[in-house]
């Protein structure tokens, strides 16, 4: 026994001394996670980091299909009761076995999370009316209303170890503190790693805000062992230095190099890259209801955006292929709907949105605007890839058919508060579907606002279509997949016909890496060490 430990020790030091470089991975991130606490803020970088240290009941693969993780199978009773069977023989990185108690504990934490940003997971668990544990490896969840997307959403809720807090018998009874006798931890308590105990493929090692996050392989991981003994994430917010760092050998993998810079590594044998379409759609939202609208000026004094012909003309005026090619450098796909073809509820063959300036001019004349009108396009300049460049290009195209377009590009700190006060007439937007379903965009942006159902919260343009509302409201509570997909497609067609949103393209995500590695890009834009493998 002692010899074996000695041997392991010697082997370990050898590994560290000689080919240590092959075992450690340095990844440069474009945006840093804001916390280690996986329940703090539902943000892409935070969630991506959490998948290393923590598992969830389910997980999404690189195309956002839902797969088993800590739950091996689940079934639904046709209404609002879900039964999840948990994986046997899983242990946390502190050696404690994983059971249904940890699931109850974690769900409770999201609801007893004093410092969390609103909407971070509590919006999912808040819909649970009961969570029962008939045995140590079964969890039964009852939701208020039927929720077909529950397994999708559960993939984002990290499972903590109940052993981090003193507790009696754990029950899903939030009013009674769920049986926990200690004080629920706040976000800052996770940053030193004592509470960051999960079942994931990596273990937390250290976190220095702004400098790096260090992980090491979890030798107790239940799945196949990861090839990397240690992983460090380094935030490098500027695209230029990030790529330069890869070229200089500082990093093994970088996320989001600027697409135009990919040309630099294209012919370089030392590097590889992957461009993966994401579900994030970029579009313009039109103010279709108000009279007058703040940033539109027409000779007749009316709001021309209310006229569907004008909306159609604006869409026809834009050359999406040119924007993808000249501005996005090919790292985008022209969008003819709001979720890429192939995703759940998306149209399998949406009609192409043509570039036809002559037709656009004709429609404008028909609508009574032969000389066009004046409009200001409002845009961010620090949120989406090339956002202000895209807006300027669209303004060029609109100007060419007679719509005199001006551009107001501003920092997101100014833009988002103003947009939610409906201060714009034509506003850029971007939306990625976290569930991977078409419902995500449609219910949030196009539905008539209904606070009780939390739909239509971003319908700043005042789009209203009762037929569409009926379709989307039915769809989001339909459990039958085939039927739901059909309803979502019909709803999508209605919104496209309405023309209140002009889709431009789907952003693609780029990763670049050393050529002795491979990287499997993900549609959800997560950058994960688990996607990196040594090249064969």
């Amino acid at each position, binding site marked *: 026994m002692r010899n074996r430990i000695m041997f392991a020790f010697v082997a370990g030091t050898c590994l560290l001394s000689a080919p240590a470089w092959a075992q450690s991975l340095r990844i440069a991130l474009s945006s840093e996670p804001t*916390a280690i606490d996986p329940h703090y803020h539902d943000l892409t970088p935070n969630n991506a980091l959490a998948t290393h240290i923590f598992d969830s009941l389910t997980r999404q693969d690189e195309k956002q299909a839902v797969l088993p993780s800590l739950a091996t199978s689940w079934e639904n009773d046709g209404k609002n009761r879900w039964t999840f069977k948990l994986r046997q023989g899983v242990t946390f990185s502190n050696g404690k076995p994983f059971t249904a108690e940890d699931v109850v504990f974690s769900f409770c934490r999201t609801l007893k999370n004093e410092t969390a940003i609103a909407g971070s997971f509590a919006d999912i668990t808040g819909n649970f009316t009961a969570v029962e544990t008939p045995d140590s490896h079964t969890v039964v969840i009852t939701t208020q209303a039927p929720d077909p997307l529950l397994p999708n959403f559960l993939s984002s809720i990290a499972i903590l170890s109940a052993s981090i807090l003193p507790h009696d018998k754990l029950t899903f009874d939030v009013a009674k503190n769920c049986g926990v006798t200690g004080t629920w931890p706040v976000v800052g308590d996770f940053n030193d790693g004592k509470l960051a105990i999960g079942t994931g493929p990596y273990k937390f090692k250290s976190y220095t805000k702004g400098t790096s996050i260090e992980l090491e392989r979890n030798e107790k991981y239940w799945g196949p062992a990861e090839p990397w003994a240690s992983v460090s994430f380094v935030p490098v917010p500027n695209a230029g230095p990030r790529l330069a760092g890869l070229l200089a050998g500082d990093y093994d993998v970088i996320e989001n190099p600027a697409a135009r810079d990919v040309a630099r590594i294209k012919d370089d044998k030392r590097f590889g890259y992957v461009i993966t379409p994401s579900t994030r759609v970029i579009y313009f939202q039109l103010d279709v209801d108000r009279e007058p609208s703040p940033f539109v000026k027409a000779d007749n004094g009316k709001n021309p955006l209310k006229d569907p012909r004008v909306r159609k003309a604006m869409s026809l005026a834009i050359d999406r292929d040119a924007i993808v090619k000249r501005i996005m450098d090919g790292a985008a796909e022209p969008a003819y709907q709001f979720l890429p073809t192939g995703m759940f509820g998306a149209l399998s063959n949406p009609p192409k949105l043509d570039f036809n300036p002559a037709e656009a001019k004709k429609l404008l004349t028909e609508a009574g605007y032969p000389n066009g009108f004046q409009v200001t396009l409002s845009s961010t300049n620090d949120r989406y890839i090339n956002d202000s460049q895209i807006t300027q290009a669209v303004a060029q195209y609109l100007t060419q058919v007679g719509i005199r377009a001006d551009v107001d590009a501003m920092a997101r700190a100014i833009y988002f508060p103003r947009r939610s006060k409906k201060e714009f007439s034509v506003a850029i937007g971007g939306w990625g579907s976290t569930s991977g379903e078409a419902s995500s965009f449609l219910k949030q942006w196009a539905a008539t606002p209904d606070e009780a159902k939390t739909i239509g919260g971003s319908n700043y343009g005042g789009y209203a279509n009762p037929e569409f509302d009926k379709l989307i409201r039915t769809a989001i509570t339909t459990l039958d997949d085939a039927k739901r997909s059909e309803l979502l497609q019909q709803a999508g067609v209605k919104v496209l016909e309405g023309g209140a949103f002009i889709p431009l393209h789907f952003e693609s995500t780029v990763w670049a890496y050393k050529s002795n590695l491979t990287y499997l890009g993900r549609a959800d834009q997560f950058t994960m060490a688990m996607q990196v493998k040594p090249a064969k």
Partner: protein
Amino acid sequence: MTAYILQRLIQSVLVLLAVSIVVFLAVYGIGDPIELLVPPQVSAAERAAMIRRLGLDLPVWQQYLSFLGNALKGDLGRSFVHGVPAAGLILARLPATFELVLLAMSGAALIGVPLGLLAGLNPESRPSRAIMAGTILGFSLPSFWKGMMLVLLFSVALGWLPTAGRGETVSLFGIQTSLLTLDGIRHLILPALNLAIPNMALMVRLVAAGTTEAMTQDYVKYARAKGVRRKRIVGRHVLRNILIPVVTVAGMEFGSLVAFSTITETVFAWPGMGKLLIDSIYHLDRPVVVAYVMLATLLFVAVNFLVDVLYAALDPRVKLTGEMA
């Protein structure tokens, strides 16, 4: 003297108070942080709960008063974005900025003072004029442009130095520093150089002007007439006389660099305080911005105060009265 110090102290407190009010209102005026923090699909009830928790539902004057009350107890509030105390967040970034500025200023002094002496002793010589023209160039390059050019040259074209980030750090008395590792120092060089160039130019000009002036003073003329060697005159008399303004300016520059090396930290992704300030402004993280500007103002007020008092101590002609003549 005591009355003067007391008066200045009261004034300083008033300045701090004014700064806190203006910054508070300024960030408030830019926009609602909730719109940046909370995703739009969140239910109205949850959003309202969050607004209440952050105290953003109160009228702005009430928000300010409660901030002020807590600040007097030493609590500058919690970051909206990170959920941890703002002061701690800022102070955690201090070592990174401090070592950057320290390296930049000592580099600027080590190169700037000798060059300035050289230029000041022979102001009309060719090298001196080249040095002085060089200082103009040093002042004229915008920081962001210069930083990017440094990266392009030393990192991308030559591949000598890393492009960005802080590199490896070690803990010294509980403080993370990169001055003790090779990797850390390699990461420090370019951002420090970017900060150092304009300060080097400043040093050269101060020293050159001081030297030229000192050389015309009577004491130098007497010393020369007495046959004292030139080296000794420069080393003992001239240098000593010009060091006071140089140290003063260097001190003030040090303070302002610690507070606002924002651009350099942004270009080089240096995890210091300036980077934190700009990120916090862009995220409308009001507690951090307010705490930051207050700490920065405290620094400036303290430095200005010290300079005034020092001058009074060094120069008997300066009288410290309420009128501050």
